[in-house]
């Protein structure tokens, strides 16, 4: 029985239980590994192999859920290895069909009370922090934790700040929070160690809507500044003022 994690080189294939396979492009988050995971998963979706029931991405991996009764592990591994060898996935272009979103947010104030602390941890003034967070276009690197909840990155190096060890007892839905060069836009109200620097009016998962999910992995996002009054008005918009356009 093989209990080791396999070779340390990447890309690397690992079983997840009996009916899952993980194709990892790195040990830790990096821009090329995230691009590779997104591009490789898009290719898997295009291929549409019989027996593969579903695919997804995490930060640096593509995941396949498959039917091992009809698609054996060895056969699947072989096909994945062949597909991996067809190109340098770290250099692959990002999938098509992605969108650029502009999402209004209030930075700081009582609506996002940790802007000052987070800016200080990043060595920035509040004004510099807001400028950095609104000028950096970030990508949906993965969606997880709760339905529709994106992890966005990468922010400039200054934002490589740790998560708080003491959790914020409850961060509201639509909160924008920062740590480890990433932003999380919260789709549910939850305790968190991420620092609350902005507040949006978006609802990322609306099960009753025609299009229940706002964002998809690979989409890009720019945050724009609004004030408390503007945010209140945006709460009446089902999309919370988020606007999209297709990315080339």
């Amino acid at each position, binding site marked *: 029985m093989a*209990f080791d994690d396999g070779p340390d080189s990447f890309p690397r294939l690992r079983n*997840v239980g009996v009916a899952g396979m993980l194709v990892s492009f790195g040990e830790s988050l990096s821009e090329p590994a995230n691009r590779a995971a997104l591009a490789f998963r898009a290719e898997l979706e295009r291929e549409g192999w019989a027996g593969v029931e579903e695919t997804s991405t995490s930060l640096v991996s593509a995941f396949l*859920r498959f039917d091992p009764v009809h698609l054996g592990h060895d056969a699947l591994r072989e096909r994945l290895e062949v597909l991996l060898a067809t190109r340098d996935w770290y250099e692959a272009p990002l999938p098509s069909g992605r969108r650029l979103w502009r999402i209004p947010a209030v930075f700081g104030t009582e609506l996002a009370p940790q802007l000052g602390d987070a800016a200080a941890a990043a060595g920035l003034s509040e004004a510099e922090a807001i400028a950095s967070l609104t000028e950096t276009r970030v990508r949906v690197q993965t969606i*997880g*934790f*709760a339905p529709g909840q994106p992890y966005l990155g990468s922010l400039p190096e200054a934002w490589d700040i740790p998560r708080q060890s003491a959790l914020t007892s409850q961060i509201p839905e639509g909160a924008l929070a920062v740590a480890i060069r990433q932003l999380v836009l919260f789709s549910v109200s939850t305790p968190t160690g991420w620092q609350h620097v902005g507040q949006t009016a978006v609802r990322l*998962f609306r099960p009753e809507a025609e299009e*229940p999910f706002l964002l998809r992995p690979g989409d890009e996002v720019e945050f724009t500044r609004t004030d408390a009054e503007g945010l209140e008005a945006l709460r009446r918009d089902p999309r919370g003022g988020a606007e999209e356009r297709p990315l080339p």
Partner: protein
Amino acid sequence: MSGALRIHRAGPGLTLQDGGRPGYLALGLSRGGAADPLALAEGAALLGQDAGLAAIEMAGMGGEFEATAPLRIALTGAPMVATLDGTRLAWNASHSLQPGQRLGIGAAREGIYGYLHVGGGFEAEERLGARSAHLAAGIGAPLDAGESLTTGKDTGTATGLCLPQEARFSGGTLRIVASVHTGRFPESLRARFEDTVFQRDPRSNRMAARLASEGEGFGIDIGRAILSEAIVPGDIQITGDGTPFVLMAECQTTGGYPRIGTVLPCDLPRVAQAGPGARLAFRFVTLEEAVAAETRAAEARATLGRRVEPLIRDPASIPDLLSYQLVSGVTAGRELEPEGG
């Protein structure tokens, strides 16, 4: 014809469940669906209908129900005390429910999740392609007294059928395979895990089953944090304090705790159905053994219909009475026998 089922009294854990919502992992939504998928398949076999139809899942306790039109029902999963106007009903069987009759379903005698199926299934509005409640994701809500559930068009007529109940309500030794982090657990710790007897902690739910045991925990020092990766139902995560949690149907889609192994999908209902006092143990098997077990389980599910038999053989419905060995053929009273295994 279509009708409705009125709920007069509801236990605290009643939800509509079906096969769940595949296809949304990439968007952070796990598949969910019935905690005991075999029970769904059994209900479908008893009523001769599609296994994708929605049924009522009852966690630990049922309720009281009434039909507005003649209705076929089937009762599967954890055996509960069921009565029709006070008369005891067989479990893992189909029955007919006439308007005005009261169906009472009490506490589970063993196991956790019982299922109430109707001919034609329940016709709740679909959300993202399924009718099942996914409470962790905010889809659907627990069923409550006063609600009336519309039932779909029933194309079948047979009732009074039963299926032998596959023992899965009192724990047992479950098969697990190595998963992404198994190699990070020292051999001695894996051996101790296999030697430990667990109970499903009552704080367990549709997201995860907490495994309680005597003795020290199973935590490992993983150095720097593990990057969050795809997780699947059946994965056994070890949290920071060393407690194992088996992920269930409504788990999150990614997680960062180390995983010592993964329970075979065909053994997972035993975790969901491990009631008070049930003892659970785990044993590593090879991937080949796991796939062989899954293949056998899939075949058994696909051929459940062949194992359906009359609950009570009414002599009037037997065309050639004299050819039957009446003594060995009688199956009435099966519901009073103790569960095997």
